[in-house]
C-alpha cells in the first residue's frame, strides 16, 4: 500500500500535477491556453470512450452491465443527500451552497477516472470496458438531487426545460458516449487504425492536462479562504466515504478488481465541468468559489495523489485480486 502510494506519487502524471500546483502557488505566469486545454480534454474523452467501447466489443456485454449502470445512477442520486448531511454538520456554509456542493460530489470527475485507468494499466489490472458508460451515466443524476435539496429550502431553482437538454447533451457526455459507441462498433480493427493516436501518446497528453489541472487547482487554493475548516475536512472525508459506498456496491455487483476500483473512484470524485455549469444556470445565488475550490483544489488533488492508491489497495484486499 505504501509502496503503491509512493509509486503513484512519483509517477509522471502526479508529478506534472504537482508542478502545475507549485507554479500557480508561486504565482508563475506559466499557463496553458484555454483552446489547448479544451483540445486535450477532447482528446482524452475521445480516447477513453473509444477504448472502453473496443473493450466491450472484445469481451462482449457483461451480464452485470445493466446492473452496474443502474447502481451508478443510484449512487449519483444518493451521494448528494449524504454529502449535504455531512456538510450541514461539518461546515457553516448556507443551505444553498451546501446543496450545490453536494451535487458536485454525486457526479464524477472524468480526469480522475482517466488517471485511475492509467494507474490500473500500469499495474496490469484489467477492468470492465463499460465503466466508461457508467461514468457518463453518473454525471447528471446528482444535479437533480442537488436541485431537489435546494427546492426543499426557501428557493426555487430555475429549471427551464432547456436546462435538461443542456445537461444530458453536454459536450463531455456526448463525446464520451459517442466515442464509446464508435469503439464498440469498429472494435479491434478500428482501434488498430488509430491506436498510435489514442493509445500510445495517451499518458503523455494526460501529463500536460494534469499540469493544467495543477495550475487551476493552485489558483483555486489561493482562494481557499472562502472555505471554513469543516468544508476542507469534508473535501477529504467525503471521497473516502463515497469510495467505501462504491466499494460495497462494486463487491455486490461482482465487478473485477479493476472495476471495483473505478466504481470507487467515480463515487469519490467530484465534478468540475458539468455540475458547475448547471449550477451557474439554475442556482446563480450559490457561490461558485466554494464548490469549484472544494472540488478542484481539495478533492481532486486528494484523489489523484492518495485516494487512487488507497482505493486500489483496499479493493485488492477485498477482492483478493
Amino acid at each position: 500500500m505504501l509502496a503503491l502510494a509512493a509509486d503513484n506519487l512519483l509517477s509522471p502524471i502526479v508529478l506534472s500535477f504537482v508542478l502545475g500546483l507549485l507554479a500557480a502557488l508561486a504565482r508563475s505566469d506559466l499557463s496553458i491556453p484555454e483552446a489547448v486545454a479544451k483540445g486535450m480534454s477532447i482528446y482524452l474523452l475521445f480516447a477513453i470512450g473509444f477504448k472502453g467501447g473496443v473493450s466491450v466489443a472484445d469481451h462482449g456485454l457483461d451480464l452485470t452491465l445493466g446492473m452496474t449502470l443502474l447502481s451508478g445512477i443510484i449512487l449519483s442520486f444518493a451521494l448528494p443527500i449524504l454529502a449535504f448531511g455531512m456538510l450541514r454538520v461539518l461546515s457553516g456554509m448556507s443551505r444553498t451552497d451546501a446543496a450545490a456542493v453536494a451535487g458536485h460530489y454525486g457526479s464524477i470527475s472524468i480526469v480522475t477516472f482517466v488517471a485511475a485507468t492509467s494507474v490500473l494499466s500500469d499495474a496490469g489490472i484489467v477492468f470492465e470496458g463499460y465503466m466508461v458508460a457508467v461514468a457518463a451515466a453518473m454525471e447528471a443524476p446528482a444535479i437533480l438531487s442537488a436541485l431537489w435539496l435546494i427546492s426543499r429550502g426557501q428557493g426555487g431553482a430555475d429549471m427551464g426545460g432547456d436546462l435538461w437538454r443542456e445537461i444530458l447533451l453536454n459536450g463531455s457526455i456526448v463525446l464520451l458516449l459517442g466515442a464509446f459507441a464508435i469503439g464498440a462498433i469498429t472494435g479491434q480493427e478500428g482501434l488498430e487504425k488509430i491506436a498510435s493516436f489514442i493509445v500510445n501518446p495517451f499518458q503523455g497528453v494526460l501529463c500536460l492536462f494534469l499540469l493544467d489541472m495543477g495550475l487551476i487547482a493552485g489558483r483555486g487554493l489561493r482562494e481557499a479562504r472562502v472555505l471554513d475548516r469543516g468544508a476542507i475536512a469534508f473535501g477529504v472525508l467525503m471521497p473516502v466515504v463515497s469510495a467505501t459506498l462504491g466499494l460495497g456496491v462494486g463487491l455486490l455487483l461482482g465487478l473485477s478488481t479493476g472495476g471495483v476500483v473505478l466504481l470507487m473512484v467515480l463515487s469519490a470524485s467530484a465534478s468540475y465541468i458539468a455540475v458547475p455549469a448547471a449550477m451557474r444556470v439554475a442556482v446563480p445565488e450559490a457561490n461558485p468559489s466554494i464548490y469549484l475550490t472544494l472540488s478542484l483544489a481539495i478533492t481532486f488533488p486528494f484523489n489523484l495523489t492518495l485516494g487512487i492508491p488507497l482505493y486500489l489497495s483496499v479493493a485488492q484486499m477485498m477482492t483478493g485480486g
Partner: protein
Amino acid sequence: MQMHKAKRVVITIEAVMQRRLTEALKSAGVTGWSILPVMGGSGRSGEWSREGQVGRGTGLVQVICIIRPERLDELMEAAFAVVEKHIGVVTVADVEVVRAERF
C-alpha cells in the same frame, strides 16, 4: 456623411447564460448582436481568468447590440429578465451609425 442616433448596449454576462440571453433578445424582436470574448476580470465575486479552463462554468462574454433609441426599452426589459439574478453588467451608450435602416 449622414449619421443617425442609436444606442449601443453592452451586456457582460456569464458564458453559460449566453444562449438564454440571445433567445430572449430574439423574442423581444432584436435581430442583430455581436459577441466578444472576455478573457478575465474581477468583481465582487472575485477575480477570474479563462486561462487553461476546460469547463463553461467560469467566464463571461460580451453581447453587444446596436439598436434604435426607440427600441431600447424592449431590449432592456428582455435582457434584464435574464441578467437579473445572474452576474452581469449592462451598459447603454449613445452612438451614431451610418446605415440606420439596418437597426
